[in-house]
C-alpha cells in the first residue's frame, strides 16, 4: 500500500480505535506523527540525494588529489588520506549518534568506506605495492563488511557485495579459475541481512550469487572439453531449480519470508536462461561432437555423479517445501509443477547417456518442456499473485518462439518471406501475448518491496 494512502486510512480509522479503547488517547497523534515522518517518498529522495552526493564527493576528492599528487611529499599525502577517512567516519559517528539524520549519517559512513578503498589503491601507488591485484578489492570489501556489521549499515553491506562481485570477476577473468572463496565472503554477508531483514541487500546478494555462477562458467568453457558445457549447463538448471524450490520453502517461514519471493524470482530467471540454452539443437549436437560421452572414460562418471548430486539437492529442496506447505489439499499448480519437474529431471538424466546423433531429438524434447515450463510459470505466478513470474513466463515464451522461428525458417524460406512472416508473427503474437499478460496481471497487487527503500 502506498504511504499516503496508508496515512489517509490511519487518519480515518484512529479516532474509532481510540473510541473503542484499542489505542490510548494521545497515542493516535503519536502514531500519525511517526508514520508521517517515515513518508516513503521523502525518505527515498533524501536517501537518493545523500548517496549521490557521497558518490560525487568521493570521486571528486579522489580525482582532485590524483591530479595534484606529484606535487606533494609522501607525509602530506598520508595525512590527507588518513585524515580524510577519519574525518568521514567522525562525521558519520556524530550524525548517527545524534540520531536525527540517520540517512545522512549512513551516506557519510559510505563515504568513509569509499575513502578506505581509495586509500588502499593510493597507498599501493605511493609505496609501489604491486601484488596480486584482486587482493586490494577483497580488502576493500572486507572493510565495507566490517562497517556493515558494526554500524548496521545497509549501504555498506551493498558496497561489500558489489566489491565482492568485482573481486570474483577479477580472480576468474584474470586468472582463469573457478573462484570458490567468493562463497565464503557471500555467506559472511547473510547473517546480517537475515538479522536486519534488509530487502535491498537480499536482492544484491542474490544478484551477486547469479553473477558469480556465470563467472564460474567462464573457466569451465576455457579449460574443459566442449562436451562438459552441456553437462554443466544441466547442473546449472538443476541448481537454479533447487534454488527456486528453496525460495518457495523460505516463503513458509515468517522470519525469512521477506526474501522468499526474491529468491524465487532470481532463480526462475536464471533457471529459464539455462533451460533456454539447452533448447538449441546446435548446443545439444555440437557439444557432444567433441567425444561420445559413453566412451569418454572416468570424466563421464564424474558428470553422472555430479548430476545425481544436484538431483538429490533438488529433491531435498522440493521435499522441504512439500513438508512445510502441507496444510491441507495441495494446490493444483504445485502438483503440475512437480510433474513437470519430474519430467525435466528424467530428460536431463537420459541426456547424459546419449551421443550427438540424438542431439536433435533431445533439443525437440527440451523445447516441449521449455514451453511447458513457461506456461506453468505463468500459471503459478497468477496463483501466487506474483506479477514478476507471470511477466518473465511470457517473456521467455515469446523468446523461445522467436528463436525457434529463426532456427527453423531461416534456411527454408526466401529471405523476404522470412521477414514478412516474422513481422506478422511478431505483431499478432505480441498483441496476443500482451493481452493475455495484462488480463492475468490486472487483478494483482504491485509486488511487495517496491514502495520505498529501507
Amino acid at each position: 500500500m502506498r504511504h499516503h494512502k496508508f496515512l489517509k486510512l490511519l487518519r480515518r480509522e484512529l479516532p474509532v480505535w481510540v473510541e473503542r479503547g484499542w489505542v490510548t488517547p494521545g497515542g493516535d497523534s503519536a502514531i500519525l506523527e511517526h508514520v508521517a515522518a517515515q513518508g516513503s517518498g521523502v525518505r527515498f529522495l533524501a536517501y537518493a540525494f545523500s548517496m549521490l552526493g557521497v558518490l560525487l564527493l568521493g570521486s571528486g576528492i579522489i580525482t582532485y588529489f590524483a591530479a595534484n599528487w606529484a606535487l606533494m611529499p609522501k607525509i602530506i599525502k598520508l595525512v590527507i588520506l588518513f585524515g580524510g577517512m577519519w574525518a568521514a567516519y567522525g562525521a558519520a559517528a556524530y550524525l548517527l549518534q545524534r540520531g536525527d539524520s540517520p540517512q545522512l549519517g549512513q551516506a557519510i559512513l559510505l563515504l568513509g568506506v569509499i575513502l578506505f578503498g581509495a586509500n588502499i589503491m593510493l597507498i599501493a601507488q605511493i609505496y609501489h605495492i604491486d601484488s596480486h591485484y584482486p587482493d586490494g578489492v577483497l580488502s576493500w570489501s572486507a572493510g565495507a563488511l566490517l562497517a556493515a556489521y558494526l554500524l548496521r549499515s545497509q549501504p555498506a553491506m551493498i558496497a561489500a557485495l558489489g566489491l565482492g562481485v568485482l573481486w570474483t570477476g577479477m580472480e576468474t577473468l584474470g586468472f582463469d579459475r573457478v573462484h570458490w572463496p567468493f562463497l565464503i565472503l557471500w555467506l559472511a554477508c547473510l547473517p546480517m541481512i537475515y538479522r536486519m531483514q534488509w530487502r535491498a541487500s537480499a536482492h544484491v546478494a542474490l544478484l551477486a550469487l547469479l553473477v558469480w555462477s556465470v563467472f564460474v562458467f567462464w573457466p569451465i568453457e576455457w579449460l574443459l572439453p566442449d562436451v562438459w558445457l552441456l553437462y554443466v549447463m544441466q547442473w546449472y538448471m538443476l541448481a537454479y531449480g533447487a534454488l527456486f524450490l528453496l525460495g518457495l520453502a523460505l516463503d513458509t517461514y515468517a522470519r525469512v519470508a521477506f526474501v522468499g519471493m526474491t529468491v524465487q524470482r532470481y532463480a526462475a530467471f536464471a533457471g529459464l536462461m539455462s533451460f533456454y540454452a539447452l533448447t538449441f539443437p546446435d548446443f545439444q549436437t555440437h557439444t557432444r561432437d567433441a567425444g561420445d560421452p559413453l566412451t569418454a572414460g572416468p570424466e563421464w562418471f564424474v558428470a553422472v555423479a555430479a548430476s545425481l548430486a544436484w538431483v538429490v539437492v533438488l529433491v531435498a529442496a522440493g521435499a522441504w517445501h512439500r513438508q512445510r506447505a502441507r496444510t491441507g489439499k495441495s494446490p493444483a499448480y504445485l502438483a503440475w509443477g512437480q510433474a513437470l519437474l519430474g519430467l525435466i529431471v528424467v530428460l536431463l538424466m537420459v541426456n547424459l547417456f546419449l551421443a550427438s546423433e540424438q542431439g536433435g531429438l533431445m533439443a525437440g524434447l527440451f523445447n516441449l518442456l521449455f514451453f511447458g515450463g513457461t506456461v506453468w510459470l505463468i500459471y503459478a505466478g497468477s496463483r501466487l499473485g506474483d506479477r514478476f513470474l507471470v511477466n518473465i513466463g511470457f517473456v521467455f515464451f515469446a523468446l523461445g518462439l522467436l528463436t525457434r522461428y529463426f532456427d527453423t525458417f531461416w534456411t527454408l524460406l526466401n529471405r523476404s518471406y522470412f521477414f514478412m512472416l516474422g513481422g506478422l508473427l511478431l505483431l499478432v503474437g505480441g498483441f496476443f501475448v500482451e493481452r493475455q499478460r495484462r488480463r492475468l496481471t490486472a487483478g494483482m497487487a504491485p509486488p511487495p518491496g517496491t514502495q520505498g527503500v529501507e
Partner: protein
Amino acid sequence: MTVTARLAVVVVLQTLALFTMIAMKQWTLNTGTLVVLETQPIDPRSLFRGDYVRLNYRISELKPQELAGDNEFRRHDPLYLVLEPDDPYWRPVSVHRRKPTLAGDQVAIRGEVQYVNHRGRFDGATNEIEPIQVMQVRYGIESYFVPEGEGRVLERPQPGEVVSLRIAVDKAGNAGIKAVLVNGEARYTERLF
C-alpha cells in the same frame, strides 16, 4: 556498545590494515638483500602508461631448461628464482616450485608465472628441433609510479644511458623497488616518508 565505539573499532581496524600494507613493504625494503637487476629493452608503447612506468626485466622471461631446478611450470604457478651476484647485474641460477635452500650470497625472489609458451629450438648437433618452454614471470616489482612527465626519462633513455633497478628481496622472497638507477646512479630512491 555505542555507535561511536563501534565506529571507532571500524576506524582502528581499517587504519591498521592500511598501516600493515605500508609496514610489510617497508620491512622488505629495510631487511631485504639488495640486488641489481637489468631491465629489458623498452617498448615505448607499453612502458609508460599514465604516470607510472611499466618495468620489464631480463628475468621476466625465463627458459627453465636453461636453468637448474624444476623444468615444468603452468600458468599462475608460483615460483622461486635463485639469483647470485655478478657484475654489474645479479644473474639467475635456478628456478624452483618451492623455496630452495640457498648457498652463500644467493637470494630467492618469489614470482608467479603469467603465461607459458612452447617453442622449438633447432639443435645443430642432432639436427632436431628441441621443444623449450618460455615463461613470462611477474615478481610484483613491475610498476613504478613517478611524478607526472618524468616517466619519459625512463621510457626513452638518452643514447648511452642504461636503466637498472636496485631491488630488496626479503627472506620470504618478497621483492620491493629500492631505487631506480640510470647508469648505475640512483635517480629515484624509496624512503618511508
